[in-house]
């Protein structure tokens, strides 16, 4: 199936004709001139990007182009890497996330993250989901916690599969289920933005289809940024796509335009499989 055919996406509840990319929606996050250095090596060379509310933005590009690095700037996960330095401005709802008054730990509760490899904690399924709410004090008492866990698992489409085995360890689930557990875990702290770093690269096609469907549903409530190596996946789940190459953002446009009518010849070369 060609990418063009796959662009015929399912209609979404809040989609109006011609407004799929959400041009009229406000920007949830904005990046201006973002540069990242690992020691002396420069990984990002000044990125400008707008992330629209309640839309899925896909970041594509060859390995080592800096898309994961950019993603990890958005919730300051790069802070945990020794020797990493970030320049430029990234704003969440207009507020600089690298500002002095901002608590990086608190920021990560608002900008959640799902990783490439499913990484459930060595705890029960229930405690995996309840971990975030517990440390942030989002649920007082047993009943509220049950409620949060149940809602999160339902939203992540995992509830029916695990509702009878909430006390079993999270690691006992299959790979695809583990990844949905990680999404449920991220949802449980009620983030505004969810960052996904190649969330399906360790999963089989069926589990991947599951997650993709889930991403499409989640954008009703969350803003999502997803890094992917799979261009079909970008075409299927995102409304806007940004193409990264060698630490630069080559172009960012509506997904349909990127895949049908790319302006830059590097983008053209990458999506038609000439390199990357």
């Amino acid at each position: 199936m060609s990418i063009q055919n796959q662009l015929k996406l399912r209609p979404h509840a809040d989609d109006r004709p011609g407004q799929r990319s959400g041009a009229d929606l406000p920007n949830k996050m904005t990046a201006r001139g973002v540069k990242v250095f690992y020691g002396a090596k420069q990984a990002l060379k000044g990125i400008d990007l707008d992330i629209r509310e309640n839309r899925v933005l896909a970041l594509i590009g060859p390995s080592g182009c800096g898309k994961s690095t950019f993603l990890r700037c958005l919730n300051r996960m790069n802070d945990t890497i020794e020797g990493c330095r970030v320049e430029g401005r990234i704003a969440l709802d207009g507020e600089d996330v690298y500002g002095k008054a901002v608590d990086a730990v608190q920021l990560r509760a608002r900008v959640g993250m799902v990783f490439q490899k499913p990484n459930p904690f060595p705890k029960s399924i229930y405690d995996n989901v309840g971990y975030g709410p517990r440390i942030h004090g989002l649920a007082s008492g047993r009943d509220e916690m049950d409620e949060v866990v149940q809602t999160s698992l339902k939203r992540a489409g995992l509830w029916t599969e695990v509702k009878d085995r909430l006390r079993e360890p999270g690691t006992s689930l299959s790979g695809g289920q583990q990844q949905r557990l990680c999404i449920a875990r991220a949802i449980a702290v009620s983030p505004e933005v969810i960052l996904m770093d190649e969330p399906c690269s360790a999963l089989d096609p069926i589990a991947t289809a599951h997650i993709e469907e889930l991403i499409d549903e989640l954008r009703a409530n969350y803003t999502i940024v997803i890094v992917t190596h799979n261009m079909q996946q970008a075409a299927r789940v995102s409304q806007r796509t940004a193409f990264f190459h060698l630490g630069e953002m080559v172009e960012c446009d509506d997904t349909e335009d990127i895949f049908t009518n790319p302006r830059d010849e590097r983008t053209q070369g990458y999506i038609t499989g000439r390199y990357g």
Partner: protein
Amino acid sequence: MQLTLLALILALLTVIGFLVGRSRAASSVGGRVAELHSVPAYHGVYVALWAGLPALLLFVAWTASEGWLAMQMVLSALPERLFTGDGQSAALLKADILNLARGISTGREADPLVMEAARRYAALRDLAGWSLLAVCASLAVAGLSWGRHRIGPDLRARPAVERVVRVALVVCSLLAILTTLGIVLSLLFEALRFFTVVSPLDFLFGTHWSPQMAMRADQVGSSGSFGAIPLFAGTLLITVIAMAVAVPVGLMAAIYMSEYAGRGVRTWLKPALEILAGIPTVVYGFFAALTMAPVVRSVGEALGLDVSSESALAAGIVMGVMIIPFVSSLSDDVINAVPQSLRDGSYGLGATKSETIRQVVLPAALPGIVAAVMLAVSRAIGETMIVTMASGLTANLTANPMQAVTTVTTQIATLLVGDQEFDSPKTLSAFGLGLVLFLVTLCLNMVALRVVRTYREKYD
């Protein structure tokens, strides 16, 4: 003398074998080495092994049996009257012959027959030495020529050498196991001898330890009482104190090293902590006796407590310090083995560093930490010197850490120090204690290894 000569001859023949084998292999194919099944060096090793190994094996077998054989020959020639029947006099006779043969006086007038036997024994040994030399050397030469004879383009010297290497490796590992087995068996038999004198129940459950036995019937005050409970209790008390020091400090040091310290700090901090493990325990011992004990005593007095000058507390604290590097180093490795992705997952949910460590990293590392603590416990139980020097030898049955207690290992050491007869219950009781100690640490180590193994299965 004969031995040195033999060793020299064998070494020489082996080297010659190597050189001969290598050059013959090369010449057998007219210098076109590629036509050989194995490269010439393997042919060299092959011939060298033929020259050296059979002779060596013969040497080992010969020396193992020679003394016994010579003694049997000498004894069989002696008249019946010298053996008064029981095993003890025969053993005494043998010892006399051996001593006389070596020219050591037995301290009493020897029977001329025994003197004669000793002379014969010495002569036999001398003869045996020379004949061993001759037989071994000719066997080595024979092996060399046999190996040389077999060399040809098709000789599979490489797999043959491989097989010998494999056997050698197996023998080495068996040697280690057999030695351990020997130690355990000797412990077991001596302990059994002890348990024929003192009932195991009295030993394991008696509450009075006073191992002095009456040497003469009229001696007073040395009844001999072997209730080991005070020793077990003392060991337990000191181990608990040591672990109370070592586990929290060691664990937190490990957490700091693996989670907080930068690479620069880590590179010097970890080796520095491991230096603690390299200090001889005797040095810890006088630190405990001369520094820690007075400190504990004066602190205790300041608090209005009655502290004896040798206290379990002082010994336990110093032992804890000694064990810190075990706990910290092993825990550090285990904590480092927790995948970074778990930490990322926790940070990504907005958890702080200490929340992540407490709720994600430590639970994931827990089995490994438990194993580290178990190994540290068996180390603490086996520690002797610190207690000997700092906590004394009084077998008190007490749970008060301010008093002197003694431990199993300390008692074993004191029971066997100096001139002792090895058939009194006093000395034999050391083996009983040793057996119990061995079983306890064995169990601890097995549990620890099992925990470590299940942990590995989880994260590989």
